[in-house]
Every structure is written in C-alpha cells, then in structure tokens.
C-alpha cells in the first residue's frame, strides 16, 4: 500500500512543482469478480480491474480538478497539469479553507478477507449451480447476481493527509421466480464465507412458493410490516432528499427547520456512522477528500438532527466537514452524501411485529421508489415487489398482487407501531456501504394504486 501512497504523493509533488498552493489526490480502485444469472443459468460473468485517481489543486482560492484512469507517474503528472490549467482559469472560490489536514483520527483495521479477494469465476459458478438445483426442487427459476472482490480508497493531501484502506466485499442477490410470482433475498458481507448462499436461496424460494396464487386487494390504508430491504430503500431516499448539507442550504430538506424540531416517532433514530460495529459491513473511515468520517445524528429520537457535509458545504455552514464528500465516480449527487446509514434497532422481535397486526400487509421490498415528490415532507411513491402478503390476526396469509404506495414517510414514521431488534445489511443503490435496517411496523400506510 505504501507504493500506492507514494504514487499519489508523487502527484502532489508534481502539482506543487507546477505551481499549486494546495493539492489533494484521491484514488478509488477495485477488482470486481461478477456473475449475473437469470432463468437459472449464468448470463454474464467477468473480472474487471478499474480505477480512478482525481487530482484537485488550488491556486490561492482558484480550484480545478482532473481525473485519470492511469496510475503511472506520467498520467498523474498530466492530470495535475490539467487540474492546474483548469484552476488558473477558474474564478476564486471564496471561503476555500484548504484541502484536508491531518486530524489524528485512528481507525480500526480494514475488514479484508484474502479468500474473498481471490475468489474465482469457477467458485462463483459452483455456488450458483448449487442454488439452481435447490430452486428446481420447487419448480422455480433463479435470477440475481454474485459479486466479490477487493476495493481500495486512498487520499494524500499537500497538508499531510496520507490514508489508504482496502476492504473486501461479497454480495449475493437472489430472486426465485414462478411466472409472475417471486421471492427475494440478499446478503452482503466483507467475507464471502459469511454470506450463506444456500440460506439466501432457501429464503427466496420459500417466499416465492408462499407467493403463488396471489389475490387482488383494493388500494387503501393498511398496517404494514416492512422487511429490512423495504425499509432500506425508504431510508436511502430520505438520505437523497434531506440528509445533505446542500439540501439544508437550499431549504429543500426536512432538516432545514429548527434543530430538534419534531419529525416522527421518538423511537426513530437515524445515524450515519462508519464506526458502528456490524459483522456484515466494511466501512471506509474517511471520505474522498481524506476527512475522517464523523458520526452524524440525522434524526435523533424523532427530532431533526444535523446533515452530513464535505469541505465546501462545511465552509458555508461554518463548521468542520463531517467527512461525507461524494465518492469518486459518476456524478450522481450534488454535494455531500451519507455513506453509512443506520436506522437504529428497537426493542421488538420481528415476529412480534407481525403478531401485532390484525389486518395488514407484509412487504418484502419496494421497487423504483422515488422520494422527490416533496422532500420537505419526505413524500415518496413506489411499488411493492417479490412478495407482498396479507397479515390476518397476527399471521402471514395469502399473497397479494403488487401495490403502489404514495406517502409522507415522516408522517408514516410518526405512526410507528414497532421497531425490530434485528439489523440487516442491505446493499445500497446510492451509497457505497450497505444500509443497516431493522424490520418495522407502520400503521395506516397509504397504498394508492395497483399494478394491473
């Protein structure tokens, strides 16, 4: 790893030689082993090496950036020159207080499993072959994806930050299908040996078998028990709409009101915490700017907390960065974004949440949720998929065809009927680290349409 940091330090030195007054070099790389499958056959499989290095420079208060996929001295020096050229033509960025400085933060060693880093295409294929045979016993077909490999993040700044972190990841998603009905399970872990592929296939197949012969019901208000995968999608959209300092500055966040304003049930606490210990999560303890991630209470016992920030947003807000600059890669967010979301668990056994429902629905997960309808009230819409079931007198009953919900999630969390003790790592769509969520019970959740 010192070789990588030396290379990045070389880029810092090159930028200084070219006239930069401050420099940040940020690097992201991974080797991704992947197998996608559908109709119980592997449809895509590959091994991909990919990497990106961004050089950001300041000339006084003028800032420019350039990224490159090259890692040799020539490519990095070229990126430094490009960044300098951009900075010199850029207007001053008032309030720029410099790139990250050493902060003395210490972190736990990265979760790295050598066997997961080295897992081959044959091993992935053999695992999947076993799952296909399991599904066939129930006349089901499997679809999904299995991904494994190491991921590296590193940052060096002119002020002395020099951080690197390499973790491993294994992720398996399984959908079991019988025509129009399906079941779903997903697992994520830093170590592939923790994934339990057979258990995930069993869960997906059992759900699919139970989902056969769905009935139609009318949209309306129902008590719902949301499985962790369903909860995670809502939490992610809360994050997209409201947990960035940028959204607070724009006034579009529900955190833009007075600090401590009541938002929902006092049992609800949402945090962004890279130091939270969970065996299925491998967090990166610093952001793409090299700032150590701080624990941020986003919703504190049902009341408005504080948003996450990066260096630029922190300068506007007048405080330190919380270490939530967006990761390198496609530009999917404006400004800072959460990285390690956790809906803190409650005191209820998941099975007890179902027992509390007289007439309601159990939701395995949602599809294509959109949380941009009214971000100040967290109004969202989305469809159910892969297992929607009636709950009658405290027990799961018949399968139901999919429904669309449209609801203020803050209002819904104000009607919290219970919060599970379980905490499951759900691979995230928009953040690098899985979201940790329990099962929850919401009263009078509003379904507004059907899929047919």
């Amino acid at each position, binding site marked *: 790893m010192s070789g990588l940091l030396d290379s990045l330090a070389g880029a810092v030195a090159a930028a200084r030689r070219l006239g930069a007054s401050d420099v940040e070099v940020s690097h992201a790389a991974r080797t*991704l082993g992947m197998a*996608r499958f*559908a*109709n119980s056959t592997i449809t895509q499989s590959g091994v991909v090496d990919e990497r990106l290095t961004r050089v950001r420079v300041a000339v006084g208060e003028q800032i420019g950036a350039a990224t*490159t996929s090259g890692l040799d001295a020539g490519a990095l020096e070229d990126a430094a020159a490009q960044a300098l050229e951009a900075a010199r033509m850029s207007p001053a960025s008032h309030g720029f207080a410099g790139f990250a400085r050493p902060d003395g933060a210490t972190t736990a060693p990265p979760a790295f499993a050598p066997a997961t880093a080295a897992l081959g295409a044959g091993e992935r294929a053999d695992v999947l072959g076993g799952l296909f045979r399991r599904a066939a016993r129930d006349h089901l077909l499997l679809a*999904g*994806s299995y991904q494994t490999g190491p991921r590296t993040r590193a940052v060096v700044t002119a002020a002395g930050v020099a951080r690197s972190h390499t973790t491993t990841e294994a992720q398996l998603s399984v959908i079991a299908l019988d025509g129009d009905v399906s079941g779903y399970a997903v697992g994520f872990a830093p170590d592939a040996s923790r994934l339990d592929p057979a258990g995930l296939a069993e869960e997906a197949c059992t759900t699919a078998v139970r989902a056969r012969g769905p009935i139609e019901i009318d949209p309306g208000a129902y008590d719902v028990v949301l499985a962790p995968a369903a909860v995670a999608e809502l939490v992610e959209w809360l994050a997209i709409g409201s947990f960035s300092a940028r959204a607070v500055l724009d*006034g579009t966040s529900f955190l833009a009101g007075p600090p401590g304003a009541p938002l929902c049930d006092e049992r609800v606490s949402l945090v962004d915490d890279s130091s939270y210990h969970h065996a299925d999560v491998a967090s990166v303890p610093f952001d793409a700017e090299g700032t150590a991630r701080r624990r941020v209470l986003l919703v504190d016992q049902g009341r408005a907390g504080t948003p996450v920030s990066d260096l630029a947003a922190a300068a506007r807000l007048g405080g330190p960065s919380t270490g939530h600059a967006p990761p390198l890669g496609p530009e999917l967010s404006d400004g800072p974004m959460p990285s390690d979301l956790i809906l803190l668990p409650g005191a209820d056994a998941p099975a007890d949440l179902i027992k509390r429902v007289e007439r309601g629905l159990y939701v395995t997960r949602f599809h294509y949720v959109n949380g941009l309808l009214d971000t100040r009230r967290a109004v969202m819409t989305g469809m159910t998929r892969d297992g929607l079931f009636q709950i009658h007198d405290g027990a799961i009953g018949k399968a139901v065809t999919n429904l669309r919900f449209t609801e203020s999630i803050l209002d819904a969390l104000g009607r919290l009927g219970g919060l599970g003790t379980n905490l499951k790592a759900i691979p995230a769509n928009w953040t690098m680290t899985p979201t940790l969520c329990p099962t929850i019970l919401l009263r009078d959740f509003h379904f507004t349409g059907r899929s047919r």
Partner: protein
Amino acid sequence: MLSSPTVNRPDAETDLLETALAQVRRADGVRYADARLVGIEAESIGLRMDEVERLARERSHGLGVRVLADGAWGFAATPDTDEASVVLAARRALEVARASARAADGKIDLAEEEPQRGRFETPVEIDPFTVTLDRKLAELAAAVAILRGDGRRVASAEARMLWRRETKRFLSTEGTSVEQVLVCGGAGIKIVVADGGEIARRSWPMDYDGGVSGAGYETVARLDLETHAASIREEALELLAAPPCPQGVRALVLDTPQLALQIHESCGHPTELDRALGEEISLAGASFLTPDKLGRFRYGSPLVNLTADATRPGGLGTFGWDDEGVAARRTPLVSRGMFVGYLSSRETAHRLGLGRSAGCMRAESYARPPIIRMINVSLEPDPAGPRTLEELVADTDDGVLMTTNRSWSIDDLRLNFQFSCEAGWEIKRGKRTRLVKQPMYTGLTPRFWAGCDAICAPDAFRIWGFLTCGKGDPMQLMAVGHGTAPARFRNVEIGSAA
C-alpha cells in the same frame, strides 16, 4: 481550452486488439470474441450562486475483452494497455467463460451479421474542447445572474455544462474492425425559490440532463439559456403562490421534456429484449411486453409509432456501430399502435428468431460488458397533427399541460407509473390558464398510450437526451436519446403531489 486529446495511433491500437484476440481465437470451444479499446475525455463545469462548484476534467482509457466459449460468456477488463496486461485480460476472459459454463445452459448463439469495417464520427460544428473555459463560464454565469435577479426568495440558482468525447476501436474474431469518435454535451439551469414554508423549483431543459445532445458546442446556442433563465425564474416565483393541481380524470397535454421521460420509462425499458426474457429481473425488473405479444399486442392508439434509431442525427444514442459491432439501424417498436419490435442484441435476436439484432448493445466504459440499452427511442410526429404546442392546447377543451419532470416511478413490469412535474397549467376552452404546482399523473402503460389522440407535427419534434439511464448489476449509466413532439392523452388520472 483543454489540451489536445490523446492522439490515437490506429495501427498500434489495432495491433493491441489483435494481440488480445490472438490469445483466444483458436482456443478450444471459442465460438466468438471481441475486444474494445475505449478512451473517454470529459469536462464538467458547475456554477451555484456566485461560486464555481465544479470544474473538472476526466480522462480514462482501457480495454475490455469478451469471449463466448463452451456456450458461456466471459469478460475481462483492464485500465492498463501494455501488451502484457492485454494478454492477461484476454486469457482471463477465456478462463471466466469456461468456468461459467459449469453453471450455464450452453445454448448461446448469435444472429448473423456481416463483418463491418469503417470509421464514424459525430458531426460537430464547434468542437467543445476548443472553446475557451472563459467563454463557457461566462455563458453559465450570465444565466445564473438572470436566475438570481435581485436575489429575493432565491435559495439556489445553478448552471451546469458537460462535454464528453469517447474514442472506441473494436475488433472481433468475425473480421469486424471499426473506429468511432462520439461527442456529446450540453448545458442546463435550475432555480429553487422559497417563501415562508413554500418552496418551488424550475429547471431548463430538464434538471440538467435534457440539454445534452450528440453534437458540439453549437448545442449551447440552441438552448438559449438566458431567455429560459428569465422565464423559469418567473414561473418558479409564480409557483410559490400557485394552487395545487386539481384532482380528476382529464386530458393531459405533455410538453416534450416530460414526454421524453414517459417514452423512456414506458416504452424504452419494456421493449428491451433482455428484460422481456427475464435477464434483468434481479435489479431493473422484467417487462409486460413478453415475446408472445410481439406483433399481436395493441400498445397504443393508431397514432402511436415508436422507433429505435441509432442513425437519427443529434441523439445520445447515435453511433456507427454498437459495442458488438452491429451497424446502426432503425427498428420499429410500435407501429400504428401495435407492438412490433424489440431493442435487441445478436444473442437475444437469435434466441427469438428475429433474424438480426437491432444493434443495441452498449457498455458504459471499457470496464463493463455491453448489455442491451436504449439508443434513440422516439415517438414519431403526426404529419397531420397540430403544428405547435400552442395549437395543441387550442385544440383541447379541458385538461392540464405539464412539463419538466420532478419525480418518476414505475413498476418492475413497466405497467403502473406515476410522474410528477415541475409545472402545470390548466387548459380551459383551448386556453392555457392558471399555473398549478406539483402536478402529478398516474396510469397503466397500454391504457395511457391507447388514450393518445393527438401528436404534434414534425415541426414540433425535437430530440432530448438523458445521460444517466441506469441498468445492469453492477449498474451501468448510459446516455440515451428520445425524440418527440408534444402530445395529448385522454382520460388520465391527474392530481397533485403537494
């Protein structure tokens, strides 16, 4: 001005690709292989209020190799393009294919295609990489200044510009050898205003993405940012006091920025043949347009003609060849309201007996295998329709006109959708009347398109672009185009997200 782009050395690059293919060409069990060298050069600029929030340049370069061996695909990619790395990547792809065959059905074959040779370049009037940064910043700053006005009630005023040049060289074991230089880019503006508890947003052309096209810097002049900055500022301020869109079943007139997204979600995605065959079900979902419906299913009214066309000038889905070397072509998807075609690859076209691929295999970068993507999926204009949006409004007795997407959601079969827009206007007796906030509509895809009773004429047709269509696992972002003229839909459930 950016420095000169990386100078390609065609012979050296071709030799490198030949080296990759030589590793697998004669190996046991290999049916087909291809190799791509992809270089991307990009520039993005973002202004927010009086700050330059983003000024970044990007260069990436790498190789992707795909091998079909023992009836299974293998893919490998590397950012290192020295000979040793290229050889390693090709051998890895072959190993992966052979290993994957242990859990694959081995039934893969490819629709025949003539080997291709040639070069394609996006026609560009003004090379965006030769335009000075000063000029780009000045154009964006001028728009932001208009958006901000006197500053009162303005929470955020933004302008953004992006340019991208992708250079691709492709070789296959069937003799195809092609090179492409694809250029795209554009600009967009957005304003957020607030007053007490009310907040409103307007953007032009569509929250950044829409103003991007397959062309050069001439795109910026066509966007006329300053004129639109003034109009969206006025509309945003008016929206603060506007009533919610009334609920009811009414006629819906969609202006092209929103109709482009409607086409994307409810026609583009469900006609992807990999979805219809269940191959994208784990993430993106499947499709209600299953193969048994091909040629037999009424998708919309007889006015509705939808095409996939990679030869259409100016689109983000315009190119010479797709990423498996299939020449750009035009494929009808919906003809006079009947579902007649799919977006397809060589493999899926063969499986369905379609005879030929629709040429839709595209990869985000060197580091991803190509998958079926939209190209330019467009709603064809009606030569006999109203000539302009205002003529269409004048022809509407009672309804709502909506523009510019605010939120989108559609189910995993692409049937049940709900969209909300930034702005709407009630239509009464052929007149655009009061502005309404957060208009929303919902429906079921075939029922919605069956209600299409007017599409404007070719003069009102324009092509829009989306940069970030997500699909695949791991997700790949793709730039796609959608052409359309304004259109009207009857009996739509309309309401407000407010």
